[in-house]
């Protein structure tokens, strides 16, 4: 009855100890590099706890004044998603190897996408702020670029995996390149497009708050001003409010995305 198990292979101790030791050394090296010390952290915990005490309870009286700025944050995110979402379509199509119009166009578009993705949203906010001044418009423009970076890369990969039979059939009836894209390619990848656009919207709501910190308007700006005035009970209120709002948006978005899948 008792099955004979083959002998359990010995553990590779040199590898385990070597890898563990390497990670430990890397951590110590990095910690000293940035001047991080555990003892200082423990000594400063007192001021941390004072901060926490001052932050509680949340200032619920502040709530009505949050609705307007939060709506502005959502507006920035919506404009960013719509403008960026539309711009992503041609950029993604030209970056898909099976659909692009030529090697040079493909190469240029790929690299353009890579540059967009390399630069962070904050950089774009600063750039547009210099161009159009600090405020919600700069934020919306920055998020448009950010949305293009998110959607175009993901969607161009979806487009590369479509069945090329249908685009060929559109070609065979005498359809042009644009008609092939419109009727042969996009219908096959429309669901993933909507799904990525919703995902980009979720990211944009969060990103637009970060952009508010640097003056791009919305609730991030209120958060920054209250923090600068040491109104920690209000800061807590803002964080709670944003937490609930983001959770609701994410639930809504993932509900739709599941329906589409």
């Amino acid at each position, binding site marked *: 009855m008792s099955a004979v198990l083959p002998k359990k292979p010995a553990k590779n101790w040199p590898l385990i100890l070597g890898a563990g030791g390497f990670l430990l050394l890397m951590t110590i090296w990095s910690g000293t590099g940035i001047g991080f010390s555990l003892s200082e952290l423990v000594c400063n915990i007192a001021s941390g706890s004072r901060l926490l005490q001052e932050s509680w309870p949340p200032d619920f009286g502040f709530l009505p004044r949050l609705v307007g700025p939060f709506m502005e944050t959502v507006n920035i995110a919506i404009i960013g998603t719509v403008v960026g979402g539309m711009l992503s379509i041609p950029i993604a199509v030209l970056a898909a190897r099976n659909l692009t119009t030529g090697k040079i166009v493909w190469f240029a578009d790929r690299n353009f996408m890579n540059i967009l993705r390399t630069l962070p949203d904050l950089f774009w906010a600063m750039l547009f702020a210099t161009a159009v001044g600090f405020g919600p418009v700069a934020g919306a423009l920055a998020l448009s670029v950010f949305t293009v970076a998110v959607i175009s890369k993901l969607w161009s990969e979806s487009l590369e995996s479509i069945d090329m039979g249908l685009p060929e059939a559109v070609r065979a009836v005498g*359809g042009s*390149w644009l*008609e092939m894209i*419109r009727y042969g390619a996009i219908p096959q990848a429309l669901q993933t497009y909507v799904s990525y656009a919703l995902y980009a919207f979720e990211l944009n709501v969060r990103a637009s708050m970060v952009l508010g910190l640097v003056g791009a308007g919305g609730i991030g700006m209120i958060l920054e001003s209250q923090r600068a005035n040491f109104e920690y009970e209000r800061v807590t209120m803002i964080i709670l409010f944003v937490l609930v709002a983001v959770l609701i948006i994410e639930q809504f978005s993932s509900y739709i995305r599941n329906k589409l899948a």
Partner: protein
Amino acid sequence: MNTAKGAIAFQQTNVVYPNGVVGMKDLNLNIEPGEFVVIVGSSGAGKSTLLRAINGLNRVTSGTVSVNGTPVPQKEGRELRELRKHVGMIFQDFRLVKRLSVMSNVLIGRLAHVAGWRTLLNLWPEHDRAIAMRALERVGITEKAWTKASQLSGGQQQRVGIARALAQEPAIILADEPVASLDPVTTHQIMRDLVTINQELGITTLVNLHFLDLAREYGKRIIGLKDGELVYDGSAKTVTESDFKDIYGREFTDDDLLNEDAKL
């Protein structure tokens, strides 16, 4: 239905694929307007290559293919689109836009006939909608016009494929293994549809088939290909068992017949 004639001519045509495979070898072939031709041969014999050379989906390496005396353009562009406008194609895997309605799929056959800005905005002229509806009538599925293509059976989907080709008001229809994914009953219905369309509308029709009994039952003229070469060209009435053996290069089995009881 239209005035364009569907004459096809191959002159010393060769197709060699980039991987070195020979798809067509020194083909000389003339097809008159209004003919119904069945092309047979084992897989890899060059049946698809022949059809796809006619509408420029495959390039030829040397020699010429011409439709109505005009050589098939060998690059994408306005001239090739103009030729394809009047050449319908039917595929083994139907190639419909699954999430769109039957009507939208049939309208795709009108793409080359309607201004580009209209097709991109999905604004189809009444005239073209009427043509699409007539094409659906001809294959007998008007009641499915607003059904999503994905909800149709295989046979119904192939009918939509035929209607899409008819909506082009074509001079030529190329059917690449149109019944290979269908059951025997549906197969006969689709083949009868193709024959009827050929007879009533005078559209030159080329059908690739791999079932020998079907080729014999529906073909008027049979063309046999083997390794890209023309090895048989004659009437379906006089084709013999040994001709088929020449085409296939082997004894044939029940797998080559749709109806296992059929005798050649």
